[in-house]
């Protein structure tokens, strides 16, 4: 930010879907690409509401954005590993959506990679359950899937 002001007067207020208000520095807010355009026109009285983000997720996002630059360059990987390790699958899922919505620098990659790794070598039923996705195939499509599946799998990890 060009003008030098005290962090508090210059901070951006973000309101989560569950009604909590977070004050963050412009440097942090600017890394959420979705709200970036809103920051320029906002002053300390503006409150940007985030309809897809819960307080817990915003807390984690801020933790990541503050923690990553603080870590030594060689420790970034360890920091990221620890960051996702602390998350339960439920939290991981919610955070992925929040991060995808806010388009948080770096964190989108980390979350998508983590989720991609999670589903490696897993059964379709596991993936459905994990993502809470419903099988919406028609019987003909399902037959097709079964055929592909039978061809591709001769044994899969138990979930």
């Amino acid at each position, binding site marked *: 930010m060009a003008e030098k002001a005290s962090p508090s007067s210059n901070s951006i207020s973000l309101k989560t*879907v569950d009604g909590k208000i977070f004050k963050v520095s412009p440097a942090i807010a600017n890394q959420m690409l979705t709200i970036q355009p809103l920051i320029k026109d906002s002053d300390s009285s503006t409150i940007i*509401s985030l309809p897809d983000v819960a307080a817990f997720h915003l807390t984690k996002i801020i933790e990541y954005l503050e923690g990553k630059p603080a870590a030594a360059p060689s420790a970034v990987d360890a920091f990221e590993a620890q960051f996702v390790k602390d998350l339960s699958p439920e939290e991981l899922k919610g955070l992925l*959506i929040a991060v995808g919505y806010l388009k948080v620098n770096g964190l989108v990659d980390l979350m998508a990679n983590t989720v991609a790794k999670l*589903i490696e070598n897993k059964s379709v039923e596991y993936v459905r359950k994990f993502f809470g996705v419903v099988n*919406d195939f*028609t*019987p003909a499509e399902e037959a097709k899937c079964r055929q*592909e599946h*039978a061809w591709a799998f001769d044994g899969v990890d138990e979930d």
Partner: protein
Amino acid sequence: MMPFRTIVYELKDIGEGIGNMYRKGAESKHMHWHGKSHIAPECSLPPPPSPSSFSTVVSEQSRWANLPPELLLDIVQRVEASETSWPARRVVVACASVCRSWREITYSVVKTPEQCSWLTFPISLKQPGPRDAPIQCFIKRERVTSTYRLYLGLSPALTCDMSKLLLAAKKIRRATCTEFLLSLVPDDFSRDSNTYIGKLRSNFLGTKFTIMDGEPPHDSAVPLNCKLQQRDHLKPLLPRVAAANYNVGTISYELNVLRTRGPRRMCCTMHLIPISAIQEGGTAPTPSKFTNCYNEHASTTPISKGKKPRVEFGSAGTDDSPGSTPSAREPLILKNKAPRWHEQLQCWCLNFKGRVTVASVKNFQLVAAAEPSQNVAVAEQEKVILQFGKIGKDIFTMDYRYPLSAFQAFAICLSSFDTKPACE
């Protein structure tokens, strides 16, 4: 479609009623993201949730089924890019069986073997291989059961038990010919099964073979006009029909009139692949999905009640593509490379680049045979498109390249197993 939608919104409402905080406000913002990724009630798998777990299932579901497609795409792309070898690559196939939106996205991410050199879905067995480095496979013959199995990989020794079974074939002797039935699985060669891929049939002498595809030619890039026999059998398609057979290639072994032992001469005509396919910019038909067990292609798929329809390719084809010359649309003809007589070893030799180690009359290398009028570069005519040879007792390697598919290549190799002494 309409009843679908209604249920979708009801589901969402339930989700909100239960206090799913994510839906509120996000609804309007994200509606444009959804596109076709709407939720639908499940039909069979997995079993419906019990009433007690219903609330969590619904709230989870509304959040996750609404996973923005770009995020899902991002995840599937990462999965696809990181798993490039079998068996790990099966996770990509799993992603395509999750639900419709996952399937759509996964299919959009997975490229053809020509583009990425990897086999992913069974359909990639019917898509042409890569243009440069061949896809390397091996074939195991089981004499007792008369079955042949095609595996992805360099050799059984190098890939251990990790080889991916691509196709299986079963040899069946009939009164007047021999047939090889090709299947996706090693234990079901029924023509009515949806694992049926096609077959190879010999003539009485075992000198000429026909490759029959269980799938109709998929697009209009067919070089010659194909006309259906028995048109009176064309009827609206039932959901499941026994696969028809479409003649896609002919292999002939030249009779050695002198009856002396010498190298075979073989000639393959691939009716659906234009000779131009081997040139830069030329293409071979590349189906994107199987059609034989769907009714969505009812208008184009033949059905027969009695005899199976067979498609023949007449030479009286009409050239409906004005841009290409008729000669470029002539079918691809493959001939085996003539071996050199090696004076010191006193045998016929071909350079298989280390992929073939045992001398056998079955070994061959196929290259394109073009007429001068077809303007095919000499370099293209020297490229080995399919190579097949023995590396051990009942073990053979098969390396294929564009414009052949694994199915076509396997069928050509199978013909080499069944030639009669008459042509040797």
